[in-house]
């Protein structure tokens, strides 16, 4: 009986294990992205987007990702929090903006950035993002 309980407790604990590295990596990706945007380095910023997000930026703007990505409307701010669940992450910035990331073969990549809560709507409504897959 005790072995079953230990197995259950271990299973519950495993859920939290291994994600502190993921959180650090996700924060790093978002920091480098905003750094690239500040320095108007569109290539570096686009390299941190997921393929789907990159294609969405190009299709929405009608121009190359590197040209469009630095001209979007970002609030920015210092990184306040990073959360990771399975292969999805969200990084919240001090300015009230968030970025969503997915973990792929190449590590964490941004799938949506410049996301803000929609004013006047319930918190259950998805955020409105400047660029998203």
């Amino acid at each position, binding site marked *: *009986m005790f072995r079953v309980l230990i197995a259950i407790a271990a299973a519950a604990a495993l*859920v939290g294990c291994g994600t502190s590295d993921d959180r650090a990596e996700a924060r790093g990706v978002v920091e480098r992205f905003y750094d690239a945007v500040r320095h108007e380095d569109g290539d570096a910023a686009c390299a941190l987007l997921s393929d789907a997000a990159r294609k969405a930026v190009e299709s929405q703007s009608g121009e190359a990702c590197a040209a469009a990505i630095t001209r979007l409307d970002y609030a920015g701010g210092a990184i306040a929090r990073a959360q990771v669940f399975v*292969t999805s992450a969200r990084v919240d910035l001090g300015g009230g903006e968030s970025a*969503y990331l997915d973990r792929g073969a190449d590590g964490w990549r941004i799938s949506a950035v410049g996301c803000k809560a929609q004013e006047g709507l319930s918190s259950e*409504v*998805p955020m409105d993002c400047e660029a*998203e897959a």
Partner: protein
Amino acid sequence: MRRYVRESSLGLFFLVIFFAALVAQALVGHSDFNDQQIAHNDPTVSLGRFLTSSVFLVDVMENWQSEYLQFTLFILATIWLVQRGSTESKPLGKEGLESDEEQKVGEHAEPDSPKWAKAGGWRLAIYSHSLLVVMTIIWLGSWFAQLVTGRVVYNAEQFDHHEAAASLWQYAGTSEFWNRTLQNWQSEFLAVASMVVFSIWLRQRGSPESKPVGEPHESTGAEG
């Protein structure tokens, strides 16, 4: 060894098919998860990563908790509730915790009774409820594990939809958590009800879960 296997064949059989089904669930669950990841333009994961993820664990835990709840409630209910004609019920009139003599404890214990049944005091008190206590602990433990792992899976989907994550407390109030819980509970309760009622009128020769084939419908608590 052969004698041990023969005398433990019932337990061994169910343990073996449990492991086989768990392995099969892991393989098809991994395949299903990756299919959904691809459909959502999300990255796929390896089998090893999947097995230690909340995605797999919540599906295991939500089923374990409902099975152990089923046994917890069944053990508890059959102390005081009866069903005329059912093999799953005590004979009518025996409702309650019964006498020490009927339960072979204290001065009524036999030479080969379990040690704590002969001991008396707190040891007897604990042992007298040990089956119910263990089932309840495993039920609550696996339900808590379902809560923890279910929240992780729920929040991954929340992020996929660009929504906010839920705390453990918030997740406990979601329809997603209760949908997972209640869909399992209803089937467990139906299974017990079916067994209690079917055993009144139906028979399976040779099984102790059935009355003897020729046993009257009115006869309660008889085993085949």
